[in-house]
């Protein structure tokens, strides 16, 4: 029903100041506890609940980091897109995502270990492309040895599946024939191809790994960039493309560039907004809106390549043009869910009085829409790769448990369950749940949905990243939890540190009255 014009209370105009300290302190404590938990990765070499050494530490950190990177990107996206579309409704809650976005630069600082991995990881344990040439050659040699035609493991599939070796792309005339064990085509179709797999699990895994390294060797061969296929009269492609995309220095430069651009945006949008608190100058809004379209272009490019470099390059042989879009969908979900939860928490403490159930309703609608959008893009990526059955892309899904072959190493593993959890938990259940208007307007139910979606976003990122550490085994334990707490603690401590200094509501925004009078039941709201 229509609300009367709402006035902004004084509490919404004054910085929350010292009342943020308890929250800040709690965040710092959480961050310290998290760091200790994260360090338990170093207690032994055996990955279990704890342990696993440096690679485990790195992967656990990477998942936790990417999760809060997603939250920050989502917050930036929410501010940026609503500015682009000149939205009025969002103003009441905007200071929260704005503050997260303004801290982008610190999220970049937290990303330093990832840049360092490019330089220090000569074994290629996290980013295989960081492997030194010497180690790479050794790995390829080992892989060739495992794939020798008369090797014990190979007889079984060599005979039953003669077509595997005439795949035009699988065997590219470079001696890196692909084994059907890593060939998701058969794995995913569920056809009785069981005979293609040796009985022993161990052998199957070894071959899978070997194939994978072999493929990597081919893809990563330094010559690839300037003429590995030069002998191929048919397609002399690659000539001139000598850019070492995965040179650690270039990698570092790129990551720094993404963060500089994204941080500048976050800072700019936040600065304009807090300046307006004091000056009430509508020109600041005009300025934000003038910059929004070019910033959106940079934002799209920035997060796409950020996702490519930080997550997709964990497997440098695999590629999907959809990857950046899926990361955006996850990020946006995380950003909206975080905004909902932080606003609710602040309201519980008596702040943000202007925020009404209509604002949550609108945020809930976005949460619902992007749940579906995530499903749409994730399904498209899976279905297209599954359908085309190209060996160079399907193995990626098999590593993540997307297989129906009972003898595949991943069959029955935790990854297989995780796919089902993602399908139902990230798409079907929240879709049905958030479909109801009642749920979106009930703050308890909506906060449950928001927490749930954050969990699912974490799980999705975990599912993207962790199989590169170990598969079919699923590694989850204290280091992973610790990484979330550590990064989350820092991100939230920074949030409160910044949020306390300024009014919790951008009360002098020229569209504030629209947000204050928000009425989601109106067919066509009119603001004067």
């Amino acid at each position, binding site marked *: *029903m229509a609300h009367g014009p709402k006035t902004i209370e004084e509490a919404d105009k004054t910085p929350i100041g010292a009342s943020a300290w308890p929250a800040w302190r709690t965040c710092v404590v959480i961050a310290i506890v998290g760091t200790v938990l994260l360090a338990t990765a170093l207690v032994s070499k055996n990955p279990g609940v704890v342990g696993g050494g440096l690679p485990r530490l790195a992967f656990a950190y990477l998942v936790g980091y990417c999760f809060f990177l997603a939250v920050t990107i989502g917050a930036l996206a929410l501010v940026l897109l609503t500015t682009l579309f000149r939205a009025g409704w969002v103003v009441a809650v905007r200071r929260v995502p704005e503050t997260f976005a303004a801290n982008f630069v610190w999220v970049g600082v937290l990303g330093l270990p990832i840049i360092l991995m490019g330089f220090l990881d000569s074994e290629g344990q996290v980013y295989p492309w960081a492997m030194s040439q010497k180690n790479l050659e050794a790995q390829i040699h080992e892989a060739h040895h495992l794939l020798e035609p008369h090797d014990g493991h190979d007889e079984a599939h060599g005979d039953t599946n003669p077509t595997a070796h005439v795949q035009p792309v699988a065997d590219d005339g470079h001696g890196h024939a692909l084994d059907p064990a890593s060939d998701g085509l058969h794995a995913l*179709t569920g*056809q009785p191809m069981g005979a293609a797999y040796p009985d022993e699990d161990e052998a199957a895994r070894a071959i899978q790994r070997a194939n994978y390294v072999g493929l990597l060797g081919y893809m990563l061969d330094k010559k690839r960039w300037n003429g590995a296929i030069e002998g191929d009269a048919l397609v002399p492609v690659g000539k001139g493309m000598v850019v070492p995309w995965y040179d650690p220095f270039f990698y570092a430069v790129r990551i720094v560039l993404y963060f500089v651009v994204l941080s500048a945006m976050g800072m700019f949008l936040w600065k304009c907004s807090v300046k307006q608190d004091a000056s009430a100058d509508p020109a600041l809004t005009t300025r934000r809106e003038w910059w929004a379209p070019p910033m959106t272009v940079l934002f799209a490019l920035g997060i796409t390549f950020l996702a490519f470099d930080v997550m997709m390059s964990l497997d440098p042989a695999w590629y999907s043009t959809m990857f950046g879009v899926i990361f955006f969908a996850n990020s946006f979900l995380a950003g909206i869910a975080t905004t909902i939860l932080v606003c609710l928490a602040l309201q519980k403490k008596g702040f943000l009085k202007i925020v009404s159930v209509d604002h949550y309703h609108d945020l809930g609608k976005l949460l619902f829409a992007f749940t579906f959008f995530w499903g749409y893009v994730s399904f498209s990526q*899976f279905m297209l790769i599954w*359908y085309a059955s190209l060996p160079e892309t399907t193995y990626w899904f098999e590593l993540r448990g997307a297989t129906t072959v009972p003898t595949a190493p991943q069959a029955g593993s935790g990854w297989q369950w995780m796919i089902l959890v993602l399908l139902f938990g990230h798409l079907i259940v929240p879709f049905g749940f958030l479909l109801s208007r009642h749920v979106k307007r009930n703050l308890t139910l909506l906060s449950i949905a928001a927490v749930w979606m954050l969990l699912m976003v974490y799980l999705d990122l975990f599912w993207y990243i962790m199989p590169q550490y170990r598969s079919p085994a699923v590694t989850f334990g204290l280091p992973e939890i610790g990484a979330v707490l550590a990064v989350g603690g820092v991100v939230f401590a920074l949030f409160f540190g910044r949020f306390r200094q300024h009014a919790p509501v951008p009360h002098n925004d020229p569209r504030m009255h629209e947000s204050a009078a928000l009425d989601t039941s*109106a067919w066509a709201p009119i603001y004067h």
Partner: protein
Amino acid sequence: MTAIDTPITEDHSAEHDVPAKLYGLIGEFDNVTDIIAAANTAREAGYKKMDVHSPFPIHGIDDAIGIKQTILPWIVLFMGLSGMTTGLLLTTYTMADWLPQPGFVPENFEGYTFLISGKPLVSLAAFIPVIFELTIMFSAYTAVFAMFLLNKLPLLSNPLLKSERFRRATDDRFFLAIDARDGSFDAHKTADLLRNMHGCLAVELIDDD
């Protein structure tokens, strides 16, 4: 642009006989605020069988005349789920030979099994588009047809449409219509009530024949 019409008040005084078969009374208004106020007044005066006719949906009118939430979304949800089930069964049944076949189904209606591009007969991922489209198709058709049926449309002959004045209900005027079947209806009293409402431009008696 438009001159405000001089308020006209139909004379329904005692010397005019009220037609035997009445449809009801309509009062004409020229703005949203007045029609909402009028509807509230009529509701508070105890009228239940009444309606507002306007050229566009008015925000806030539902409460004023006491319209309950429609069940349309539930019907659509149900039909959407039916569409999904239909899609799931259609794709699975026609591609598989292992599903039970009731005796009354002729034999040549069974699943048409053939392998293509190495896909399993029942490939859920490949069926999703068809299932999805059928879900949408069922729900959308239902949303439209159920809406018209709940509104008891099409109804090509309606006593209201005979009124020359009422023609502006689809243009720029707002009408409060009080049904003669309402318990509190009394042609004279109701006409007085309408006439005395703020902003009422005209009152007209509608015959039902």
